Every structure is written in structure tokens, then in C-alpha cells.
């Protein structure tokens, strides 16, 4: 997740190219610049099982000041359009997990129809164990998994004034927040 309000991003030892690179498997659209190696690994898993995904496609305002300006927002890491599910990877320090949990609670209050799954470090570890890649866990999670190079600054979130919270009509999102990437298969 990138904090679109503060521009807070995770950076560290490179595990995945930060700049978009051509997809050497399909030759199609370039892969996005993942903020963390665990996100890149998750993208590979989703690709493997042919689950369509978008990387940080939507930003949801979650806090406004009295003037109606957005002061905090939440951009889940993945959106799986076929499953109508958001996926947020949290393999970082406990302090950041607590912050993310708080933001997620706020997101769920404001957008109760959104389906969001938080993927903790223990979930990622279990996934790697299942796929026989446990040895890679330390390199892909936490601080070592953070990506060094600069990522493009996220777009400003909202000219949108105050709430009301976005609510979904029947089926897909009623009011789609800002889109930042294309669907990948």
C-alpha cells in the first residue's frame, strides 16, 4: 500500500525492478513498480493461477479535514476484478501493521460493501511454505523485501469534498475511485 496523502512508500534493498519493465512472459504491458518484493511475488502467484489483478488501481479517501480536504487515504495493493476483492499485503514491521489495521478499520466503516483481505506476514509465510519457497520468506518480507528506487509519486487523491462514503450499487463499485493501472492477466 502507498499512503497517497503523505506519499509514504517503503524502500530498501531492491528485489524487483522499480521501474516498469516489459513482461518477458507475454511481451505485453510492463509490470508495475511494486513497492515490496512480497507484492511482486503475490503478482507472480496470481499470474500463475490466471487470476486477473490490478496494482493499486483505486485510492479511497478515509479522512477529511473540516474544509473537506482529504487528509488520509488508502490504496489497497491489489484489486482482483473477477473476484471483486481487494488484497492488501502487510509483511512489514508491527508498528506499520497497527497503522494499517487502523486504516483498514476506517476503510471498512466508510465503504462497508468493499471486500478487502489483509494479508499479514504470517499469511505470506504460510503461502511460501505451501509452495515450498520458505527459504525465500526472509528475503521477500519485512525490511529486506523493500524496494529501493524511487517510485512514481502517487496521484493526488481528491478534489472530492467531504464524505459521503462511496457505496456500491448492485454488482461492481458504484463510484470507482481513481484508477492507476490496467488489468493484467
Amino acid at each position: 500500500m502507498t499512503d497517497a496523502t503523505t506519499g509514504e512508500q517503503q524502500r530498501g534493498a531492491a528485489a524487483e525492478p522499480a521501474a516498469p519493465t516489459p513482461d518477458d512472459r507475454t511481451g505485453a504491458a510492463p509490470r508495475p513498480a511494486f513497492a515490496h518484493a512480497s507484492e511482486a511475488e503475490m503478482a507472480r502467484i496470481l499470474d500463475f493461477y490466471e487470476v486477473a489483478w490490478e496494482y493499486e488501481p483505486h485510492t479511497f479517501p478515509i479522512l477529511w479535514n473540516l474544509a473537506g480536504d482529504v487528509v488520509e487515504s488508502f490504496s489497497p495493493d491489489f484489486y482482483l476484478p473477477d473476484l471483486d476483492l481487494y488484497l492488501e499485503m502487510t509483511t512489514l514491521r508491527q508498528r506499520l501493521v497497527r497503522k494499517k489495521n487502523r486504516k483498514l478499520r476506517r476503510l471498512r466503516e466508510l465503504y462497508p460493501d468493499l471486500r478487502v483481505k489483509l494479508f499479514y506476514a504470517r499469511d505470506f509465510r504460510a503461502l511460501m511454505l505451501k509452495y515450498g519457497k520458505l527459504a525465500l520468506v526472509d528475503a521477500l518480507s519485512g525490511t529486506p523485501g523493500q524496494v529501493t528506487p524511487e517510485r512514481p509519486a502517487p496521484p493526488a487523491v481528491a478534489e472530492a469534498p467531504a464524505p459521503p462514503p462511496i457505496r456500491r450499487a448492485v454488482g461492481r463499485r458504484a463510484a470507482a475511485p481513481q484508477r492507476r493501472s490496467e488489468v493484467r492477466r
Partner: protein
Amino acid sequence: MSPARDLEADVGDVLLSEDQIQARVAELGAQVSADYAGGTLTLVSVLKGSLPFMADLMRAITVPVRIDLMEVSSYGGATTESSGLVRILKDLSASIQGEDVLIVEDIIDTGLTLNYLLRYLRGKNPASLRICTLLDKPARRLVDIPVDYTGFTIPDQFVVGYGLDYGELYRNLRFVGVLRPEVYAETA
């Protein structure tokens, strides 16, 4: 010959005893038989983990059954790096068009493999397509899968035995148990 390994000693807690498993499989067999009474059912076992469950379940079902086997590559396996995509390693040996099909799984956790299989098998136009799993681990679910028959819902622990493996071992244990973390720590 590689040195002998005490497989049972690698298991911490026994989650499901052989008796518990057999009793539940008998119940599932009776339930399936009632639901498909008067018809013929095709059981599709997803290799390799579901083999013991398939063998016991089919014998607990009283309606006529055909059986077939499928195997798909798993992420992280030997075929991952070459293609980057899931592959059918063993396809059905007969058409299922117009047939009532029951997928027999050992365990459902993320649901990613089964989600792929469901899409694949639906494309073969069965009359009906349902899922029977011995174990369900909902805490790990990424893809919501409609499961029609569940043997046991289990906690979020790494289990082996009764077909389930770690590094291709432990499948022949007659019970389901939790693998000691030090086992996979030392082999990681």
C-alpha cells in the same frame, strides 16, 4: 538408499485420527449417495493429495461411480519457472460432457488451484459440477469457492498425512497431523 526418517516423530499433534477420518468419510459417502440417488456420478480426484480420500470415499458411495484423475502444476514446483503459468499435468481420460461431476480434493486453503480447475472443468460442459473436500482451511482463503461437501474445517496449521505431503513425504500416514515447525525450518 537415503537414511530412514521417522515420519510420525515429525508430527506434533494428531489433528484427525484414522478413526475420525474413516467415520467422517463414511458420512460423506452416505450424503453423496443420497444426493445423487438414481444417477451415475463421476468423481474427479485432484492428484496427488486426494488419493487416499478418493479411495475411501468412492467405496463409501453406493450409487454407480466413474472415476478420473487430474493433476495440475503447483506454484513453486518444477514447472513454474519454465512457463510461469499453471499447467495441466494429467488431464481427464474421458469426456465429462453431460455428466454429474464431483471434484474430490484433499484440502482447500487459498482456493487458487480449485478456482482454476473449476473454470477448466466448466468448459467441458458437465451437467453439474460440485466439490467435496476432506479438509477446509478457511483462514487461508483468497478465492471464495462454493464447497458442497466438507469433511473437516481445520485451523490454520500446516498439516500432513492421509495424502497431504511436505516435500512429497508423509502422504502415507493414516492420520492428519500438524508438522513440527522445526521440520520445515531445517529443510527450508
